[in-house]
């Protein structure tokens, strides 16, 4: 393929990425923002060209050693649920925007620590970026069959790199706040992760099933090769020891590599996305590695006896079979892995460079004197230029130092250097006593060993044949520490980490830390306790004025955003807007606001410039923290208790209302009873008085009076009976006798005793029977009572020549009986009240001449006891009573009437 056409493909591919980044940035729809798979895929920035091409080289040259790079992360990833959750929370509340911020903030927000970490990362990662450029450049020449040009400016690969640098610096610096999420670039990286996997699978399938006849075919042929056994098993205990150390290096790299910290922590949008990543990311890595073995050994079989670089088997195999499309696809896959790594690494390094090195050391004074617009612009420019310079430096580095080194060794050296941040990093999260001095001295000790053990030997030989003079003597002297059964990488890792951790622990324990360090140590280790109001956990004492701090905020955030932020703060802590002095919370809050833009260290310096802090002793800090921690747990307990109390008081007041209501009901009832009883007694008494006073009453009248006395006594009796009966019903003292009965027959039984009265009044009586089955389960005697009551009422209110009609029907397993009579209607408002006790007596105008006034109340109770209901309805020319019996729910067992 010609250089021009491949270059065109590259440009098209970059344009596609640009488009995706652009759209994701612009749309910000839910699919992009809340997608845990985009987050998980973006983590696959871990798989660089080193993985894409280098793994295969390692599989061929040193066998199993390519696997620990993934096994290490696989081992630790399930524990992310605990570790990364913690890191995420700490970073969120402190507006951390890079690993340098994260570590240096913990050790007292130290400017120098941040700067050192930045330098470590830059020196560790630049060769790594150079490595990606090497991969792009070499595969470019491989695909186009052109030699690498000596002159940088005529080499096509140079143009690809420049394009890359422009793309990164444009998209990486969209936001001045570095802790802001970059949706566009992350979506592009996720797409690249997806594509590189697909292209690798295409190649794997091609090699396994087209070039060969499946996995077992490759195995059968490869197992005949002389070094097959040696490369595919451990070299005993020694081999497995090296393997374990490599696993450890990669397990720490997955936390510490700046680009991994950036994608996992800084770009995390929701904590729960972590949960998807915990199973999805290992799955991704598994698929990525599935075809390494067949490609490596397939390539070895194909190219046996030829001297070709096995790192580029992926390109060479499809080329060998003349398959142009797969060759280009593989090239694009490699390009993807390189580009995403270069972009993310350069963005996060540029943030560190600006926020932890350039701004706090020198640029801050310039920023202080400018306004918001200018500051934003100059911060962005610093980052843009940094990205560009980083990539170009990496390119130069590649051209002059790593041309001759393999992808694998350069990558691993980066890992070992970055892993030196491990002790201070993990110490930050888990160990309160870890101190700034211990961490920084440990780190430097580890780095010195790495420098002499790895970097000098690796790059020195790029230009020299052997060590000379002083250097040689030095190395001879240190050869005592050689561990013969470890590879040089494992050996240096072992010694450097041992020294690093020992210095860290010993110095931390032997010296008391600074109060600020200890303050952050508490916040870091106990982040779960402080997550809600972390500003409270920041301890600060001194003099500060809101207006001074506000002036600084305005310089970096602008008037509008400052106003907004302050409003939120005042609202959160319920602070009067006119407050003039600033407290610790406001200082921490302002530092956070500035952190994303200029870094935590510079934010602290700026705020320090306008405030006056009083010294606090470590003891005081610890006491305050202890107090606030106790307060928090006490608060929690109190809240819990007060919630319980509130619930209890609610229940009590409800019960009280209920009681008051019941009491009133009882009073009303007693009033009614007294009233009802007095009426017949008055009648009896007056009749008795007349009879007693006057002896000359004619016999006829006398008899009438005596009959009156008997009738009223009967009524009195009836009332008392009904009261007692209702009382029994209400207290569940009457057993129901439920049997299968014929409903129409029951109705007839109820009708019989009063049928002659109905006939006397010339009332037309009719029944409408819509039932197919007449047998239902109910208490017959009680139902007769209900019917008689309603029929009795109907008889009273129906005028002569009126109509009484009963209707039986069944609907949804319910038996419905409607009894209709013509005559006077019930006032709408009273339709429900008529079922109350003594309803009639309260409505004197409807007052009936006889009856206890308890009939309908009894009916209602009876129906309810049988899981039924009763209701009254006004029809056009009369009143209809509707009784519903739920047929299915009835129990066969005789049931006691329940108290309502």
């Amino acid at each position, binding site marked *: 393929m010609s250089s021009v056409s491949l270059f065109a493909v590259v440009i098209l591919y970059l344009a596609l990425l640009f488009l995706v980044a652009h759209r994701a940035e612009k749309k910000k729809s839910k699919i992009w923002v809340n997608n845990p798979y985009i987050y998980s895929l973006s983590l696959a920035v871990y798989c660089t060209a080193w993985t894409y091409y280098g793994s295969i080289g390692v599989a061929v040259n040193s066998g199993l050693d390519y696997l620990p790079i993934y096994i290490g992360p696989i081992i630790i990833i399930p524990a992310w649920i605990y570790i990364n959750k913690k890191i995420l929370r700490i970073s969120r509340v402190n507006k951390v925007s890079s690993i340098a911020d994260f570590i240096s903030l913990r050790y007292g927000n130290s400017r120098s620590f941040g700067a050192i970490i930045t330098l470590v990362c830059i020196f560790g990662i630049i060769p790594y970026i150079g490595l990606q450029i090497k991969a792009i450049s070499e595969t470019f020449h491989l695909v186009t069959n052109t030699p690498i040009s000596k002159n940088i400016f005529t080499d096509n690969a140079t143009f690809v790199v420049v394009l890359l640098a422009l793309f990164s610096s444009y998209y990486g610096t969209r936001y001045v706040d570095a802790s802001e999420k970059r949706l566009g670039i992350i979506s592009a990286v996720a797409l690249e992760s997806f594509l590189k996997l697909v292209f690798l699978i295409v190649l794997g399938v091609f090699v396994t099933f087209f070039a060969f006849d499946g996995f077992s075919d490759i195995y059968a042929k490869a197992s005949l090769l002389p070094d097959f056994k040696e490369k595919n098993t451990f070299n005993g205990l020694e081999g497995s020891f090296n393997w374990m150390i490599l696993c450890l290096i990669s397990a720490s790299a997955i936390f510490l590599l700046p680009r991994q910290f950036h994608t996992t922590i800084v770009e995390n949008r929701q904590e729960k996305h972590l949960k998807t990543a915990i199973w999805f990311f290992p799955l991704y890595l598994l698929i990525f590695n*599935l075809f390494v073995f067949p490609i490596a050994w397939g390539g070895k079989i194909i190219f046996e006896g030829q001297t070709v670089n096995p790192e580029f088997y992926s390109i060479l195999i499809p080329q060998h079979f003349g398959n142009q499309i797969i060759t280009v696809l593989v090239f694009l896959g490699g390009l993807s892995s390189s580009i995403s790594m270069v972009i993310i690494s350069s963005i996060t390094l540029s943030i560190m460079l600006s926020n932890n090195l350039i701004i706090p050391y020198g640029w801050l004074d310039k920023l202080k004197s400018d306004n918001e617009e200018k500051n934003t612009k100059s911060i962005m420019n610093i980052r843009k230029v940094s990205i560009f310079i980083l990539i170009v430096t990496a390119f130069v580095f590649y051209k002059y130092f790593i041309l001759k080194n393999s992808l694998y060794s350069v990558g691993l050296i980066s890992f070992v250097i970055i892993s030196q941040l491990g002790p201070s990093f993990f110490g930050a999260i888990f160990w309160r006593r870890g101190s700034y001095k211990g961490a920084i001295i440990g780190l430097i000790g580890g780095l010195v060993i790495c420098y002499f053990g790895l970097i000098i030997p690796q790059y020195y030989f790029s230009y020299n044949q052997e060590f000379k003079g002083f250097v040689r003597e030095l190395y001879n002297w240190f050869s005592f520490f050689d561990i013969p059964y470890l590879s040089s990488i494992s050996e240096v890792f072992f010694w450097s980490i041992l020294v690093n951790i020992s210095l860290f622990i010993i110095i931390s324990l032997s010296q008391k830390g600074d109060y600020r360090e200890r303050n952050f140590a508490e916040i870091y280790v106990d982040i779960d306790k402080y997550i809600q109001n972390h500003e409270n956990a920041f301890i600060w004492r001194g003099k500060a004025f809101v207006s001074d701090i506000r002036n600084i905020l305005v310089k970096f955030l602008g008037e509008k955003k400052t106003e907004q932020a302050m409003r939120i703060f005042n609202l959160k802590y319920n602070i009067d807007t006119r407050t003039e002095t600033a407290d610790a919370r406001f200082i921490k809050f302002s530092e956070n606001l500035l952190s994303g833009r200029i870094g935590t260290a510079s934010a602290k310096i700026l705020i320090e410039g306008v405030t006056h802090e009083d010294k606090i002793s470590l003891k005081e800090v610890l006491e305050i923290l202890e107090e606030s921690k106790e307060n928090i747990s006490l608060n929690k307990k109190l809240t819990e208790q007060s919630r319980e109390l509130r619930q209890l008081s609610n229940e009590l007041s409800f019960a009280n209302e209920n009681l008051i209501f019941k009491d009133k009901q009882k009073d009303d009832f007693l009033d009614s009873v007294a009233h009802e009883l007095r009426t017949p007694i008055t009648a009896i008494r007056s009749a008795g008085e007349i009879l007693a006073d006057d002896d000359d009453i004619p016999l006829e009248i006398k008899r009438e009076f005596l009959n009156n006395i008997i009738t009223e006594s009967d009524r009195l009796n009836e009332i008392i009976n009904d009261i007692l009966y209702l009382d029994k019903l209400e207290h569940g003292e009457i057993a129901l006798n439920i049997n299968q009965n014929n409903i129409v027959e029951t109705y007839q039984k109820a009708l019989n005793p009063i049928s002659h009265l109905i006939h006397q009044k010339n009332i037309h009586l009719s029944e409408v029977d819509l039932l197919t089955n007449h047998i239902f389960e109910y208490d017959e005697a009680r139902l007769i009572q209900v019917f008689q009551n309603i029929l009795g009422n109907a008889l009273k209110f129906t005028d002569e020549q009126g109509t009484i009609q009963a209707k039986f029907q069944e609907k949804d397993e319910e038996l419905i009986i409607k009894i209709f009579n013509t005559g006077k209607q019930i006032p709408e408002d009273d339709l429900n009240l008529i079922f109350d006790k003594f309803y009639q007596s309260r409505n004197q105008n409807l007052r009936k001449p006889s009856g206890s006034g308890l009939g309908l109340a009894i009916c209602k109770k009876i129906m309810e006891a049988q899981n039924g209901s009763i209701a009254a309805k006004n029809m056009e020319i009369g009143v209809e009573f509707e009784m519903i019996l739920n047929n299915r729910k009835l129990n066969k067992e005789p049931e006691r009437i329940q108290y309502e």
Partner: protein
Amino acid sequence: MKKRHEQKLIILSFGLMILFSAPIILLFNSERAVFGLPMLYVYIFGVWLLSIVASFIIFKKYDE
């Protein structure tokens, strides 16, 4: 997610550490073919796959 279920994942991490270290991994230290592939590869990728399935199940079942 409850602390108890989070702990299951942490235990999974410890388990993987043991399964991928000597002496256990050395038990499978052979180039002999199992399912047409070297035994050591089958073991490593098998454990890898199982760990994915395990964490997936833990999240599906206990994540509320």
